[in-house]
C-alpha cells in the first residue's frame, strides 16, 4: 500500500478546498440561513410541531443531509473529472499506485470536505434553533457513512462523465429530487398512504430518517433499516468502483 501517494492526493485535493475556502463556506452558510428564514420562520411558524419536535429543529437533520450529500457528490465528481478534463490524469495512471489508493485519496478528501461543511451547517443551524442530539455517536457515524458513500457515488459520476453537462446531470436530475422528496422537510407520516409506500423506494429516506433518529430519537423507518440501507448503498458503490478498476472503464484506453 502506497500511503505516501494516498496522502499526496489527499493533501492536493484539500489544498484546492482551502484555496476556495470562502466560497466553500459562504455558500452553505447562506443557503442554510435562507432555509431557516423561509421554512423555519415563515412556514414553520404556521406548523406547530412535527411528532413532538418544533418544525425549525425538525428540518435540521434534513438540511445537513441535503448539503452533505450534494457536497460529497460534487467534490468527488469534480475531483476526478477535472484531471481527466485538463489531462493531468496521465500522472495518476502512470504512477506506481493502485486504483484503491486513488479512490482513498480522492474520496477521502471529498468526504472530509463534505463532513466539514456538514459541521458548519449544524453550527449555523444552532444559531437559529435549539436542538439536542440524542445519540451523538450514531449521528457522527451516519454523517461519516453518508459522506463516504456519496463521495464514492460522486467518484463514479466523475469517471463516467464525458463533459461538464453530464457532471451536473445526475446531481441535478436524480440526487436533488431524491433528497427533497426524502423527507428533509417533512415526516413521511404527513404524506397520503400511497405516497408513503412510493417514498419507501427512495434510498435517501432511510438516510434522513436514521440521521433524524440520532437527533430526536424518532424515525420514519426503523434504525436497523436505515443502517442496512446505507450499508447496501456503500457496498454497491464499492462494487461499481471495483469493476471500474478492473476494466479501466473510461480511464485507461
Amino acid at each position: 500500500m502506497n500511503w505516501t501517494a494516498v496522502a499526496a492526493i489527499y493533501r492536493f485535493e484539500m489544498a484546492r478546498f482551502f484555496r476556495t475556502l470562502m466560497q466553500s463556506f459562504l455558500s452553505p452558510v447562506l443557503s442554510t440561513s435562507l432555509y431557516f428564514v423561509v421554512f423555519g420562520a415563515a412556514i414553520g411558524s404556521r406548523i406547530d410541531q412535527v411528532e413532538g419536535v418544533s418544525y425549525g429543529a425538525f428540518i435540521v437533520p434534513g438540511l445537513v443531509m441535503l448539503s452533505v450529500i450534494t457536497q460529497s457528490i460534487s467534490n468527488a465528481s469534480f475531483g476526478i473529472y477535472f484531471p481527466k478534463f485538463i489531462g493531468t490524469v496521465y500522472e495518476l495512471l502512470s504512477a506506481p499506485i493502485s486504483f484503491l489508493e486513488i479512490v482513498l485519496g480522492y474520496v477521502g478528501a471529498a468526504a472530509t470536505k463534505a463532513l466539514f461543511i456538514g459541521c458548519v451547517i449544524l453550527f449555523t443551524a444552532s444559531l437559529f434553533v435549539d436542538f439536542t442530539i440524542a445519540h451523538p455517536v450514531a449521528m457522527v457515524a451516519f454523517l461519516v457513512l453518508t459522506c463516504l458513500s456519496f463521495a464514492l457515488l460522486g467518484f463514479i459520476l466523475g469517471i463516467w462523465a464525458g463533459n461538464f453537462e453530464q457532471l451536473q446531470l445526475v446531481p441535478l436530475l436524480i440526487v436533488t429530487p431524491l433528497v427533497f422528496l426524502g423527507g428533509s422537510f417533512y415526516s413521511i407520516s404527513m404524506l397520503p398512504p400511497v405516497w408513503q409506500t412510493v417514498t419507501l423506494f427512495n434510498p435517501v429516506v432511510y438516510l434522513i430518517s436514521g440521521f433524524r433518529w440520532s437527533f430526536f430519537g424518532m424515525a420514519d423507518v426503523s434504525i436497523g433499516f436505515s443502517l442496512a440501507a446505507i450499508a447496501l448503498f456503500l457496498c454497491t458503490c464499492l462494487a461499481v468502483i471495483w469493476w471500474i478498476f478492473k476494466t479501466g472503464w473510461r480511464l485507461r484506453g
Partner: protein
Amino acid sequence: MTAILSIQDLRKVYAGGFEALKGVSLDIEEGEILALLGPNGAGKTTLISTICGITTPSAGTVTVGGHDILTDFRAARSLIGLVPQEVALEPFEKVRNTVRFSRGLFGKPTDDALVENILRRLSLWDKKDSSIKELSGGMKRRVLIAKALAHEPRVLFLDEPTAGVDVELRKDMWDIVDELKKDGVTIILTTHYIEEAEAIADRVGVINNGELLLVEDKDALMGRMGQKQLEVHLSAALDAVPAALADYNLDLGKDGRSLIYTYDIRAERTGITRLLNDVAQSGLVLTDVNTQQSSLEDIFVGLVSEGKP
C-alpha cells in the same frame, strides 16, 4: 550493457479495432538516448502510453529494470518518468507544490532539497511560488519535466518535448537531456524534428503504421545509408554527360552547368581523384566544387515512403 527496458511483440488494438501497435520488439540499454521518429499517427505516443500504464497492451510483454509492467507495475513504474506531449498541469497549483505532489504520488518521501535542485536545474527556482497559469508555454514544459524527474526515475520518456517550442528553448531542452544522460538516465524521446534526433540521440528508431521499421545506432545508420554527393560546377552548360565520363554514373545538374557524382563515404576508394582528373582532361573548365551529405531526414523520408503500401 544491459537492457533496462525490454519490449517483446507489443500489440495494441483500440476498442474501435484500430491496430496502433503491430508487434513492436525493442531493447533499450541503460544510459542511452533513443529517438523514436515517425509521422503523425505512427504509434509513437501509443507505444509510450502503453509502457507507462496509461493504456493497456493487447498482447506482448514489457519489462522495466526486469519488472513486468502489468504483474509488477509498482516496481516498473517507479523507475519511469513521463513528460507527456500535451501540456497538462493543474492551473491554480504552485510550481513547487506540483513537483512535490508528483514525488509523493510515486511514494517517495518529501525531499525539499531535491525539489529545489530540480527546479534550479530547470531554471524554475525563481518561479517556485508562481501559479502554473502565470507561466509561459516554455516554462510549463519545464514544469512537466520537473514533475517527471521528481521521483528520480531511471528511464525518462519525453513525448515530443520540443513540439511548438522556440529555437532557444529547444537548445535548452537538448542541454537538459545531455545533463540527464550524464547522470545515467536512460532517455526515450519521440520527435518530429529529425535534427533533434541527429543532435542528441545515440540510437534512432523509425516507427510507422504501428511497426518499428528499424532501430540502429545513429552514426552507423547515417554511415550505412548516408550518401555523399560531389557537385562540380562548370563554366559552360552541357547538353549531356560527356562520353569520356560515362563510367562515373554522373547526373547532369540544373541548366547543365554542373555534374553530380554520388559516392559512398565509407568506401575504400571514393573515386574523387580520378574523376576530377578525368573531368580536367576532358577539357571542361571548373568554376566551383561542393559536397553534400544526406541527412537523417533524407533517410527517414526514404524509409517511411518505402514502408507505405
